[in-house]
């Protein structure tokens, strides 16, 4: 049936009432003439030209370079390696004579001196290297619900019925369930470090080390909780055993301070936060600044570091270190950040100059050519 001709039909408009069957009900298929559907939304159309980018480059250069200088200059840090690798080092005997079943701990003393006094709070860290706390199997090997105080993870019969986290294997239970389970807890760092200042006249004074405030506040108060039920932690942890490589069970980590015993022991919490890289440092203690701001926290002079050498690292060629550092809002001494800022700042500044020359030579030429056309 030949359709009757309608001149408008070719434009795609709605045909008239006549036409092939069904055409009368055909709707107008043209899209609406709105700004969105016709792609005519109002828009800002910036262009990245030399002229627009120049100010940004100069600003970046001028801001970054001073920040870099401040970062480089500020901060003091001191690093002492006490692993005892070669024969001349003080801890050599301790590192050689290590045995797991040693009940008597080995001590060694390392002498060092400070050329510059350390002001304000001084932070003491222990550092390990070649220790892969970021190994996948190691990172998985913990039970966060157990550390949060969940009692079902501690109970013997439930634990053996596979209710404990499977990730803790094989450190989940020896004859009894292990609290805390897992490889991270098992490898807890247990060296003890003490610092003594040697007066010019030869007498030793112990420097007070504060072991509070070294873990994240949220870790200590929210994420890690001792199982509830009894103030006496010995009772609470009954029916569990200590991790294989520990010398003391978890409720004897700090028997004198109940706020630092059990799972909420700050050293333990710091250790449980697995480090990102194989060479890392963890906060050991804080040396508070003196109440009167006149004397520096650590004056210039000779010091002795007394190490109770419990932690074996020679078997995997690791190293142990003690680090003293001052911290500001910009962090500890970080030469890399400072150098990076200076580099990027100066590169930006140079690029700004280059772009300025380009803009003058070519920008004017482009603009004038277009205006004259």
């Amino acid at each position, binding site marked *: 049936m030949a359709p009757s*001709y309608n001149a408008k039909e*070719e434009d*795609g408009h709605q045909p008239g009432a006549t036409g092939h069957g069904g055409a009368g009900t055909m709707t107008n298929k043209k899209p609406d003439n709105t700004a969105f559907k016709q*792609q005519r*939304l109002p*828009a800002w*159309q*910036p*262009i*990245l*030209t*030399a002229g627009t*980018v120049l100010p940004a480059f100069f600003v970046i250069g001028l801001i*970054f370079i001073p920040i870099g200088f401040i970062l480089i200059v500020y901060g003091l840090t001191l690093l002492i390696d006490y692993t005892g690798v070669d024969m001349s080092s003080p801890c050599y005997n301790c590192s050689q004579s290590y045995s797991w079943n040693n009940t008597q701990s080995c001590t060694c003393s390392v002498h060092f001196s400070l050329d510059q006094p350390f002001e304000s709070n001084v932070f003491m860290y222990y*550092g390990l290297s070649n220790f*892969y*706390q*970021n*190994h*996948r*199997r190691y990172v998985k090997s913990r039970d*966060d*619900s157990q550390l949060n105080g969940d009692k079902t993870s501690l109970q013997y019969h439930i634990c053996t019925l596979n209710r404990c*986290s499977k990730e803790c294997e094989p450190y989940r239970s020896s004859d009894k369930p292990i609290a805390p389970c897992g490889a991270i807890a098992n490898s807890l760092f247990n060296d003890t470090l003490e610092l003594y200042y040697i007066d010019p006249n030869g007498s030793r004074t112990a420097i007070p080390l504060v072991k509070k405030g*070294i*873990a994240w506040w*949220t870790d200590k108060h*929210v*994420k890690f909780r001792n199982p509830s039920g009894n103030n006496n932690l010995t009772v609470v942890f009954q029916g569990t055993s200590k991790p294989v490589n520990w010398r003391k069970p978890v409720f004897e980590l700090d028997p004198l301070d109940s706020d630092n015993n059990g799972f909420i022991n700050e050293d333990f919490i*710091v250790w449980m*936060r*697995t*480090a*990102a*890289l*194989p060479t*890392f440092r963890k*906060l050991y203690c804080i040396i508070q600044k003196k109440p009167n701001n006149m004397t520096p926290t650590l004056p210039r002079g000779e010091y002795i570091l007394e190490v109770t050498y419990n932690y074996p690292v020679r078997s995997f060629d690791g190293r142990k270190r003690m680090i003293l550092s001052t*911290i*500001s*809002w*910009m*962090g*500890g001494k*970080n030469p*890399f*950040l400072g150098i*990076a*800022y200076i580099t*990027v700042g100066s590169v*930006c500044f140079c690029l700004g100059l280059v*772009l300025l020359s*380009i*803009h003058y030579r*070519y*920008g004017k030429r*482009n603009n004038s050519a*277009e*205006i004259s*056309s």
Partner: protein
Amino acid sequence: MWFSTGEYYLFCKGADSSIFPRVISGKVEQVKARVEHNAVEGLRTLCVAYRKLSVAQYEETCHLLNSAKLALQDRDRKLAEAYDLIEKDFILLGATAVEDRLQDKAADTIESLQKAGMKVWVLTGDKMETAAATCYASKLFRRSTQILELTTKRTEEQSLHDVLFDLSKTVLRQHGSMTRDTFSGLSADCVDFGLIIDGATLSAVLKPSQEDSSQGNYKDIFLEICRNCSAVLCCRMAPLQKAQIVKLIKSSPEHPITLAIGDGANDVSMILEAHVGIGIMGKEGRQAARNCDYAIPKFKHLKKMLLVHGHYYYIRISELVQYFFYKNVAFIFPQFLYQFFCGFSQQPLYDTAYLTLYNISFTSLPILLFSLIEQHINMDILKKDPSLYRDIAKNSLLRWPIFIYWTFLGVFDAVIFFFGAYFLFNNSTFTSNGQMFGNWTFGTLVFTVLVFTVTLKLALDTHYWTWINHFVIWGSLLFFVIFSLLWGGIIWPFLNYQRMYYVFIQMLSSGPAWLSIILLIVTSLLPDVVKKVVCRALWPTTTERIQNADKLYNGQLSEFTPLASLHAPTRRRADHQNPIPRRTNWCCLCAYLLSRNTP
């Protein structure tokens, strides 16, 4: 037809070339002259003839036809033979001529397409004279176009071989003597060629070569000639031949992208064969429109479709593809680098929530909206200046050099993120209160820098900032921050690990972390910004010049005429032996330009 008087009449209509051989009487010479005259004027001609059949003849005819129709083998051949036997000894009645005016703005469309660098061919079933007249009217052939003919008329005088060689010599001689300017529309003194070929000659050219190799392969010579012609007209084309031509061009050495447009049922095979088939919803029914990739109501709509929408979609999709590879390279490469520092134990750098949501929530919406909305140049300017289309010819934005640039950018960014964070964490205290960060904080730092960098990279690439762009780009970043705060803010009971608890917030409360985030983002974005600015200043493409000019005239550029002066100077190639203008995109059109203005 059976008249009441008992006689049978057979009426037949058709093209003059098929009717005249079968006619035995009638005013043949006069009609022939008239038909020629009509054709030259551009009218479409048909001839009508009749024949009287007696009853016996009629019976015989029916019988012949039936047996042919019912034949089990070679039905087509038997039918053709039967028709041949029946359709003879006609008496000529006369001829008809239909004036088919060109569609609205057809000439303008064709001219724009040629300026855009596309080669336009016309494939039609009409006579040569009619088609040639139409082509002149639609500006396919200009006054300065030198017409080369490869028609039956010429091949009757010379052998096909000789004709082909003659023509190729003509085109190549012209071509070699001057450097070819790709602006075929703008230089008036450059002689361009137009080729006319008809169906019979084409089948001779395409016939596979015989045993004697002296005949050679005509296809290559034919393509060579066509390559140097600005327009080609193929007349007297059977539908199958139209498809054959498209196939021939598709298989030519440069593998161009072909587009076929038609409005009748006889165009369907060509539409299906070409890369892009466009059907015009015409008066002849909807066959073409049903079989095509895109259907448009009129021929003139092709211009906006290709030059505006096609251009936009290409820009958008090339950015989409490149950006997706880039952001995923930048995402996974730090993870790969981390393996060198975690004992190759497959420890993930980022938390699983981040791994899952990166491509779904944090970086998906900005690029999605970019590829729906982006307009690098105003629509009116694109329509006004078709040569802007040449900037994207030959798939220029998805070629290897550009892809390698984007991948290199992704790798560079990843290296900056990871090693930046690595050297900052290594052997230093990264917090403002002396406490230490763990591996999840390290990963979160890298991830934060990553999300901000890739989103800001897209922001720098966006030319057309509507409110939607603002919403999705800043919204995505805000969503990332809010998600991280929520994810780490609560001890989620359904999780059996709590490793992300408070990690993000602790990271943000450390001064060095902020300093390093800012530093790493700036460092990652720096090379791309510098490259963009320097390239725009020193070697601007036509697109960029137009963008600059548009900015200068505050969006009123389309009203100022001389856009041609803004074009980037075509770089003269050092080697003139390469005759193929590499930046043209062949486009084969069957322009059924003619509107059926009469029923």
